């Protein structure tokens, strides 16, 4: 709702960051974004065509029964898959905000996003339980925190991947309630992704006018390097 956005008269930390040429330049210096570009290319879907039904349709719809079977049956499997990703995102932001690599407004943005990911974890965790499932365990993770540049780029990668992962599952969700919940998270991941892309000096819509989905195998392969043990 538009009125929700009118509440804070001050500029948000992230907006100040975007408008501040000095810190902006630091983010833009991250530039390149080759990792992200390659990753999203791997996710498939150019998204430039107007025949959206065929382009945007999930490759799994007609293929395997369930890509997320390893996480549980049906919607529970999908929710646990999402939960695993949200655990990783939350852990990532926790490590990043503790790393000392970021200060001031940059830190505020990362903390805000991290807190939203933590809310996604809580929501997904309790939903799995309410549906009678066992929530997926929190994976042990480790992220490379060598430089602010690398971390900012990884944040962008992670958020774009997160949005793609939710989009990849939308067509597989059976319950309208679970779908509604997933959609409400999906668009927030997209907002995070666009914000980070802006800070990185990259296109807010790297796949054009239509967001590209990512399948489970692609997503898991991308996050595998960060899971330990």
């Amino acid at each position, binding site marked *: 709702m538009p009125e929700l956005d009118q509440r804070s008269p001050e500029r948000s930390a992230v907006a100040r960051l975007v408008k501040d040429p000095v810190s902006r330049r630091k983010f833009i210096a991250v530039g390149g974004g080759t990792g992200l570009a390659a990753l999203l290319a791997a996710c498939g879907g150019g998204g430039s065509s107007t025949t959206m*039904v065929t382009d945007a*349709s999930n490759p799994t719809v007609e293929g395997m029964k369930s890509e997320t079977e390893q996480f549980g049956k049906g919607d529970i499997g999908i929710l646990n898959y999402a939960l695993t990703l949200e655990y990783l995102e939350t852990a990532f932001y926790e490590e990043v905000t503790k790393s000392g690599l970021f200060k001031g407004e940059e830190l505020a943005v990362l903390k805000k996003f991290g807190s939203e990911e933590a809310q996604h974890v809580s929501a997904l965790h309790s939903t799995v339980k309410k549906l009678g499932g066992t929530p997926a365990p929190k994976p042990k993770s480790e992220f490379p925190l060598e430089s602010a540049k690398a971390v900012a780029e990884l944040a962008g990668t992670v958020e774009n991947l997160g949005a793609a992962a939710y989009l990849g599952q939308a067509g597989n969700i059976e319950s309208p309630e679970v779908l509604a919940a997933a959609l409400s998270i999906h668009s927030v991941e997209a907002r995070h992704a666009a914000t980070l892309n802006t800070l990185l000096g990259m296109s807010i819509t790297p796949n054009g006018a239509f967001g590209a989905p990512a399948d489970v195998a692609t997503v898991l392969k991308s996050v595998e390097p960060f899971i330990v043990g």
Partner: protein
Amino acid sequence: MSHKNLSEIDGLVHPELVGVEVVDESGGDISRGDVILKGALAAGAVYGTFMVGPFVRSAFAMGGGTSDVDILNFALTLEYLESTFYEEAKMKVKASGELKSLLSLLASDEKQHVEALEGTIVKLGGKPVAKPTFNFEYSGTSGFLKLAETFENVGVGAYNGAAPGIKSKEVLAAAGSIVQVEARHAAAIALQNGKEPAPEAFDKALEEKEVLKDVEPFIA
């Protein structure tokens, strides 16, 4: 589940409400469609809760007798509005630099959404709705950005609200790919306006009538 419970949810839902409850109407056998997760998305929402009230409402508000073509035509009307708004703004707003690039991107994306929706409606054997006449009154860059923020956020809420009522998986995937881009637009415009790009952890879904209330003032 019965519609009685949905009207109860109607009564409950308010943007600021924080309350969560699971209603199991199946007498213990919780399965698909038997669980209503009540509550609301709100600022300061309680951790560990699941808040899907507004979109449950929306899903069923549009779900019942509403066909995919109806939903796509509803979306098309919104995309006509956004597309026309940005096309006009390209001539009307004195934008330069980053804002100019953003405006051009927005206009192009929304135009592609219009074309994709029209094409899909025809493909499904439906008839695309006529493009309404719009009347946008604003002044200057700030007036433009304020309206743009409203339209993009309404767009996100509208798609998120309508999508659970979509029957075809392919149409749903397509709607999802559009709403993702609307959300990206909303974030970029919020940044231009000095606002939080992702103010809440969960985007609120809008019901059809809420969407109409927001856009009707601009339809001539």
